[in-house]
């Protein structure tokens, strides 16, 4: 299965080959889980949503057009599932990354640099968790997952100019939250 491309795997999955779909999951589960985790702020919720995403994708394989990037198509499903989940969470007390991740205290001088780097990373992670969903998702898709402006535009159904301006605002908000903005 590993030698087959996405199009072949999709066609075989549609024909009922579960091993082919398992290969598709294997190739994309890390990205789907990471995006869900960053958007939802909880491993448990991200795991549930990731499963939902692949089940939905399996049922909708007929609607995937080969000219679209499969990962982008999958992440669009993931994004919608996460937004649904966030709407449900809004009605309940939230437990986000900011509450789950605590900065480690500085230790000895020999590990000071590493500890500072870890602290700063934790700060960024917490700040990301505090951003509005609209800003969080665009930062996750661009700066963590590395999608191009055009791919993000396709996923979020907005134009590239909006990707550019929204991303800029989101980064500025992150800098402000991490105390680096002037």
């Amino acid at each position, binding site marked *: 299965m590993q030698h087959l491309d996405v199009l072949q795997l999709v066609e075989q999955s549609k024909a*009922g080959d579960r091993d082919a779909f398992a290969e598709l999951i294997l190739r994309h589960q890390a990205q789907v889980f990471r995006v869900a985790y*960053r958007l939802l702020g909880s491993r448990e919720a991200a795991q549930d949503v*990731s*499963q939902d995403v692949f089940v939905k994708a399996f*049922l909708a394989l007929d609607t995937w057009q080969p000219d679209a990037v499969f990962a982008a198509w999958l992440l669009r499903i993931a994004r919608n599932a996460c937004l649904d989940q966030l709407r449900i969470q809004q009605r309940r007390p939230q437990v986000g990354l900011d509450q789950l991740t605590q900065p480690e205290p500085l230790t000895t001088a020999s590990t000071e640099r590493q500890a500072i780097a870890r602290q700063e990373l934790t700060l*960024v992670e917490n700040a990301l968790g505090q951003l509005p969903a609209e800003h969080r998702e665009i930062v996750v898709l661009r700066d963590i997952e*590395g999608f191009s402006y055009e791919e993000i535009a396709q996923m979020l159904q907005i134009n590239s100019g909006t990707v550019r301006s929204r991303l800029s605002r989101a980064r*500025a908000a992150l*800098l402000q939250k991490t105390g*680096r903005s002037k």
Partner: protein
Amino acid sequence: MIEHIERQWLSAYIDEALEPAQHQRVIQHLASCASCRDNLQQLQTLRYQLAQLQAVEVPAGLLADTLRRLPPAVPPRSGHGRLLRYASAAATVMLGVFLGSQLTANHQQSAGWAAVQVLGSMPPGSVYVVSPYSPVEVGR
């Protein structure tokens, strides 16, 4: 000469998403503006740190759990399924045309002929005798 680079331009600059002319203007400005260079450095550091957040461990059972939840097969949405839907729609239209033509033919044969109208402005199931000119309820 711009006073300082717009925040949006700097953000797009680190993504190499500016037009060539804009890109050149940013480079020229950065050469002489320490403040914008500092802002650029902040953005680049932020992006570097965000890229490091990629390391999130995937739950071990995700694949197996997902496979257990999959239905036996992808439901057909194309091919025979779609063909069947088109065929039944076409058959419905043809049946409507046929029935319509029969009613018209009967009206022409006898002006006093009354048709039974089932679907009209009355609730479903109401039965009327209608003449070509004035509807009269059955039983009157």
